[in-house]
């Protein structure tokens, strides 16, 4: 049987709806479905396979391609890279950057690395205090300046401290900022130039909808992103933002945040998303 456009219409519509209801941004969902349609139209299918199944298999392939992009093994990177490994965390307001740094600090400590945290959010009320409480709980050194200080200077200081004290990793927090705020995006570029982080991690939330595309695009344009950590996946989110962000940045999703405790960080698996999509 040769698949026609007409055969595919119904099944592809169902799949597009599934993607949209899973928070995959509209332009990304449309592009995935268009690719599948182009690939499958005119293809032969076995009589025993339903068109729905063929389309679903094609969708799994398309999604896997997007999510398996440029895989970066975080643990391996940290193990092999020259010291200190400098990692910055960027993203819009409230996505979970500070909490994620605490989770990663715990994880790295368990792997016996020496960690320094840089209090690079010098703007928001209570930001330095928040990170300081995490650092104290974790028994990790934190470098801070006064509120209102230059974030690049704080992070630079932390890197110097790490070099002088033979620390393995520097985790640099930055203030949340909207991708539409030109001054703050310029500040981010400046931090990148001064600090030259080895990894720039984009932190966004699994509950974000279509805006995930806009912010991933503008952040990636400003300071190329090495990978993403998707937080709040425990809020029953289907996590389509993972697809949107991976598609736009061409970089992998490294971890999922699955709660507010230090242990609530797990490596991202493509299957996690596929299971939620089809449930």
């Amino acid at each position, binding site marked *: 049987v040769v698949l026609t456009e007409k055969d595919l219409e119904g099944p592809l519509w169902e799949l597009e709806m599934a993607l949209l209801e899973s928070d995959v941004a509209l332009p990304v969902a449309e592009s995935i479905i268009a690719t599948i349609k182009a690939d499958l139209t005119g293809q032969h299918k076995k009589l025993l396979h339903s068109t729905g199944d063929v389309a679903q298999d094609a969708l799994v392939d398309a999604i896997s391609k997007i999510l398996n992009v440029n895989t970066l093994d975080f643990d391996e990177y940290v193990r092999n890279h020259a010291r200190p490994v400098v990692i910055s965390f960027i993203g819009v307001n*409230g996505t979970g950057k500070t909490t994620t740094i605490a989770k990663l600090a715990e994880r790295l400590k368990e792997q016996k690395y020496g960690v320094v945290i840089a209090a690079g959010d010098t703007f928001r009320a209570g930001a330095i205090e*928040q990170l300081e409480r995490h650092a104290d709980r974790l028994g990790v050194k934190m470098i801070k300046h006064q509120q209102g200080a230059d974030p690049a200077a704080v992070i630079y200081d932390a890197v110097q401290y790490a070099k002088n004290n033979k620390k393995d990793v520097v985790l640099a927090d930055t203030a949340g900022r909207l991708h539409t705020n030109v001054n703050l995006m310029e500040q981010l570029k400046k931090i990148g130039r001064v600090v030259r982080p080895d990894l720039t991690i984009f932190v966004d939330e699994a509950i974000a*909808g279509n805006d995930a595309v806009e912010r991933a695009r503008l952040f990636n344009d400003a300071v190329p992103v090495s990978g993403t950590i998707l937080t709040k996946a425990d809020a*029953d989110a289907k996590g389509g933002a993972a697809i949107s962000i991976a598609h736009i940045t061409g970089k992998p999703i490294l971890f999922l945040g699955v709660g*507010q405790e230090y242990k609530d960080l797990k490596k991202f698996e493509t299957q996690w998303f596929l299971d939620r999509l089809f449930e």
Partner: protein
Amino acid sequence: NLGNSLKDAVKKLANAGKIDRQVIDEVVKDIQRAMIQADVNVRLVMKLSSQIKNRALTEAPPAGMDSREHVLRIVYTELVNIVGKTTPIALEPQTIMMVGLQGSGKTTTTSKIARFFSRKGLKPAVICADTYRPGAYDQLSQLCEKLGVPYYGEPGNKDAVAIVRNGLKAMAKYDVKIVDTAGRHALETDLIQEMKDIYALTPFTHKLLVLDAAIGQQASEQAKAFNDAIGITGVVITKLDGTAKGGGALSAVSDTNTSIAFIGVGETPDDLERFDPDGFISRLLG
């Protein structure tokens, strides 16, 4: 863009128009895509678009209105039906409970609302009931100090209910008591219970659900859970100073049978506005 054409369509009322089915199909398709990109709940978008299409095909357009404007005018009325009113905020003594998902902007909005009431001549006081987030008390105290707004908290105490009970007593002489709570989501059953226990302390005038403008398809489910637990009286949409359209708020208000009270458009205490339905609708349709 649709937002501006919508404004024109609503204003235009000249001589008799006829119905062009193809144009209607095209415009409804555009509206559908705009709403989905604005994060309106997909099921709600489908329901609204078929309602809009039916009305466009069966209702006579006002004189002089072409089919495109005819559809846009119907879209406007359908959306106004959902978000057309702004939550009434009385300028009198009251208690307000701020609830919502993690990171949505509750603490920042609490300080903005305190400032709102100060400017209206009322005396606000803030109660910090977030016992989970490290530095929550520091954040709130710094924001309140800057505004000269009295605040209450018990940094060592893990019992949020006790803190609110004590805080309501300690701040009794102030007109408006605003309780900032910890972020929580529908699946965190012990936190949902804590929220119910706080609510049980006093008949709060307002229970405001603080929602991030960028929230996706989860908005509907989360809003329902908060509403089932304590009954939401109004919604605040934050971070509208970005590119997010706030479509999630549409489902939130239609599912909780409430309205939008305020919008947040920045990080400082002045960045709070009363909700304007027309502005919201035009922005939603891009």
